[in-house]
């Protein structure tokens, strides 16, 4: 340290530079590999070994998963180098240099820009196509024609929550003062919605969108902003700067309900499909639902997609298209957000950072990372997830494997036999030669095209354990849900960023690893309950109400620092990795069991992390007290 040489920048040759960069990159790469490997190998092994169904498009999926890891590596490094320091610096200077008005305008603006840039939110839109307009008109409207209004309302909700969160830290108001009233309002609205058929169907979406709004880009930024503000504030001895994310995941729920309430009177009530098309809706209602499109053409004929028949050339084109799309998406997400932050820092706050080059490199990394990551999610993780999710019900009932449909050419109906059972009902079947064995396949008239003499054979799989709807099968599905929630959480980038901040702020008394484990177990439990909700058909309210009452009770018992962290981890849990996997799981099972909306799993997956982290906090509190005094031990 004490050296008396004149020091300047060291010039490093390309060879030495590589010797520095390679181990650095390798280390970061392994970190992300370790976090992703669990969920990937878990899903793969489950499908291969438990369900015994081969994985389709394994090549593209592997490429996608590799892209997820590379993308995460860049993205996380970019967050730590660029977005988080930027957020923290602005947070530090904001209360000193800006007046209340500037703070409000800035927070509102950042919230809206960051949320609209959030990649996870587009997952909601994708899931919109799975909803039938006659089953849930309001839900269908919000996810299709009204999607822009929905997203904007979510974004405004996040914006307001950042305003309240920051003001809370500046004036040192405890989180529970915001938390308890907003929860009461939300629960009341949900109870009100429960009695209206249309609104009840969007309550799952509302609670889920709150969770989705806070994703991998928003959360680290909000957390950093909160930490910065709390450092510079004089009254923040009791609050730690966390807790803004919590509000950011509660307010959007409210705004979705408000939007729902606004549209509900103009839309028809749910009705059977026949009535729907036979003039059950007015022209205005149709316009609201479908815009200029004709509903009959949309839902009359469903086109079948033949993925397996795509040529290699087409596949490559599809991959290239996906890549360029994710790059442009990523660009759209990063440029407004980073540009707005940098402009604010330099123009309004007139501050500079000591290492600007690091900052720009960080933003570049986030951009590259996000692009590769999105691509990987779409081509790898999502595909794998939807395959497993759609096939999971085969553990308790037989399902058709539509994606492995095979066409039998020159099918001759003469080979069809008829079999009977003890009641005298008959069923047609034929023998299929598959490699070297012969198996009996039930014959369905609708699958045979007499013109082209092609029979499309849809393999049927399951149930795994003997009879249809057996309990063991349900149990396997629930166990799968738990492990999926748990292992997907370990890979979640926003959680990793939050946990790093928590470890930093608590100087290692709350370790990153421990927090991630606690949250993972919580998400696992929540997913399990969400799936149970779909199986048994429990209304969302019956899950939310008791859980939140219990949580409020636990919150009153806990210390403020743990309250903030615990509630924040709820908002953080569900990001680009968990959301697609869990939503797909819910929709897959929902489809097989003919349930209208598979939503609501996410919101139940977001409650339990709060619970587990609060319990962890109480447990740590016990050891802490024990360290201070041994009176309790003596009393026993």
């Amino acid at each position: 340290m004490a050296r008396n040489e004149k020091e300047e920048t060291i010039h490093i040759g390309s060879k030495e530079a590589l010797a520095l960069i390679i181990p650095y990159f390798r280390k970061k790469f392994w970190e992300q590999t370790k976090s992703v490997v669990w969920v990937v190998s878990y899903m793969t092994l489950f499908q291969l070994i438990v369900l015994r169904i081969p994985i389709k498009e394994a090549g593209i999926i592997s490429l996608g998963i590799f892209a997820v890891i590379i993308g995460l590596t860049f993205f996380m490094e970019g967050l730590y180098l660029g977005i988080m320091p930027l957020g923290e610096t602005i947070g530090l200077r904001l209360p000193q240099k800006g007046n209340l008005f500037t703070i409000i305008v800035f927070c509102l603006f950042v919230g809206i820009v960051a949320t609209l840039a959030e990649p996870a939110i587009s997952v909601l839109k994708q899931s919109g196509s799975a909803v039938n307009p006659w089953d849930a008109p309001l839900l269908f409207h919000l996810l299709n024609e009204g999607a822009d209004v929905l997203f904007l309302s979510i974004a405004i909700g996040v914006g307001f929550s950042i305003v309240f969160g920051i003001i809370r830290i500046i004036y040192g108001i405890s989180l529970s003062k915001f938390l308890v009233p907003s929860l009461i309002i939300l629960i009341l609205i949900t109870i009100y919605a429960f009695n209206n058929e249309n609104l009840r169907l969007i309550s799952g979406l509302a609670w889920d969108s709150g969770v989705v709004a806070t994703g991998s880009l928003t959360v680290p930024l909000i957390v950093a902003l909160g930490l910065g503000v709390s450092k510079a504030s004089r009254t923040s001895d009791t609050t730690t700067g966390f807790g803004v994310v919590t509000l950011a995941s509660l307010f959007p729920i409210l705004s979705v309900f408000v939007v729902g309430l606004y549209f509900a009177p103009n839309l028809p009530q749910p009705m059977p499909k026949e009535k729907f098309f036979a003039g059950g809706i007015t022209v205005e209602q149709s316009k609201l639902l479908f815009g200029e499109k004709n509903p009959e053409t949309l839902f009359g004929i469903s086109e079948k997609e033949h993925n397996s028949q795509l040529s290699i050339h087409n596949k490559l084109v599809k991959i290239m298209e996906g890549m360029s799309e994710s790059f442009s998406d990523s660009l759209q997400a990063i440029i407004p957000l980073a540009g707005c932050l940098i402009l604010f820092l330099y123009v309004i706050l007139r501050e500079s950072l000591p290492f600007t080059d690091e900052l720009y490199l960080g933003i570049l990394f986030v951009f590259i990372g996000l692009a590769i990551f999105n691509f990987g999610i779409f081509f790898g993780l999502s595909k794998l997830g939807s395959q497993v999710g759609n096939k999971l019900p085969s553990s308790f009932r037989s399902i058709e494997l539509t994606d492995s449909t095979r066409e039998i050419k020159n099918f001759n109906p003469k080979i069809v036999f008829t079999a009977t059972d003890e009641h005298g009902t008959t069923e047609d079947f034929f023998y299929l030669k598959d490699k070297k064995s012969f198996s009996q396949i039930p014959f369905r008239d609708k699958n045979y095209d007499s013109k082209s003499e092609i029979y499309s054979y849809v393999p049927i799989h399951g149930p795994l354990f003997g009879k249809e709807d057996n309990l063991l099968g349900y149990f396997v599905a629930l166990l799968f849900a738990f492990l999926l929630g748990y292992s997907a959480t370990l890979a979640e980038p926003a959680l990793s960023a939050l946990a790093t901040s928590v470890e930093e702020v608590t100087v290692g008394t709350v370790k990153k690893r421990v927090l991630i484990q606690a949250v993972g177990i919580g998400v696992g439990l929540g997913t399990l309950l969400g799936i149970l909700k779909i199986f048994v058909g429990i209304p969302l309210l019956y899950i939310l109400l008791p859980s939140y009452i219990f949580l409020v009770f636990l919150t009153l018992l806990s210390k403020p620092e743990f309250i903030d962290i615990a509630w924040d981890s709820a908002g953080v849990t569900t990001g680009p990795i968990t959301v697609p996997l869990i939503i797909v799981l819910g929709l897959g099972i929902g489809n097989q069991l003919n349930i209208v909306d598979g939503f609501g799993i996410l919101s139940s997956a977001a409650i339990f992390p709060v619970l587990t982290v609060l319990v962890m906090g109480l447990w740590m509190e016990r050891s802490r007290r024990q360290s201070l005094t041994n009176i309790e031990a003596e009393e026993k």
Partner: protein
Amino acid sequence: MNQSSAIRITVVVHKDLADEVQKLFTNLGVRYFSHELGRYPILKRNHIFLLNLYSSNQLYNLPVVIFQVLTDKKTEDFLFNKIIETADLTVPGHGSIYTEDISVFCPVADSLVYRNPIKTKPMGFTGLTGIFCIIQRGAADTMSHYILENGVAVPTITYGVGRGLRDRLGLLRITIPKEKEIVKLIVHSSDAEHALDFIIEAGKLDLPGKGFIFEYPIKRGLINTKISLDGPKQAASMEQVISALDQLYGNIDWRRQFTNFRKGARKRSYFEGVNIHLNAKEGSVEKVLMKLSKLGISGATISQDRLIKLDEENSLFNPARDSANLLIPKKMLNEVIAELEALDFFTEETEGIVYTMEIPRAFSYQSKHNQQKK
């Protein structure tokens, strides 16, 4: 430049007791003090049998708050005793307290120092030495384990950011992690050299890039003895017995555990200097350190603390602060202070405060080339 000599009192106290200490400062009218979060690890025995096979002892980290307050020689005993009384520091696990002689450089140096005419008897032990050790983030737990298992002392760990070689690399600096952990512990002076050796071995500090360690003199102190979380199995826990013996003897000489015969310890080349402690508005210390590097000073550790100033009318100081510790050769002290002044470190823009203390012994890996130069 206003320079005045003062006493720095450092209180490391369990987080649950921090409010009491802060209230005391408010009541006494201590106008300036800083506080920083840290942790102290203690051993925790696993009661679950299977986990016991994996490792019999695990570390449990307890949150602490580290207060630093400046006072003059006349008030030292009074404030020292008051803090001990308030936080009950004689009970193991509550925390440690120690004082050091320092010189303060700041335009308003005098107003930073707390004065009170009440006189009291001195308390605490003399003959202590502090050890300050900077290592890579994540390495402190292993090191603490060795230190606690061998009963050397109870370490206090804080987080910091290292500077030095990496800042001269240009953008390639991102490949070298800057996050550091700072381990501070207090031992008996006659044990200091051996404890230093012990830590150098435990942390492999004699290898390049592993860390940096120095010892600093302590005037008087009262140190935490709690090393394990397990409740007492006897009428008094071992920590309480140790603490009672300390009080009985009035010193901790009896706890000397290393004999003066060194066994196989390599001859290490230590160096000496002055530790400059820079404290300024968050974000500004880094900029100043970059400019200082042209004097040949590189390598400093920055940590973050909060400065509390209680009279609101003249709220000169911003609460979010950066603190940096850097070690320089003694002969350079005046040059560095002059340079800091020239860099506007003490103006209202950066709100800088500097204090220095002498470092008799410091150690880090040095290349052969550097060793010959010393």
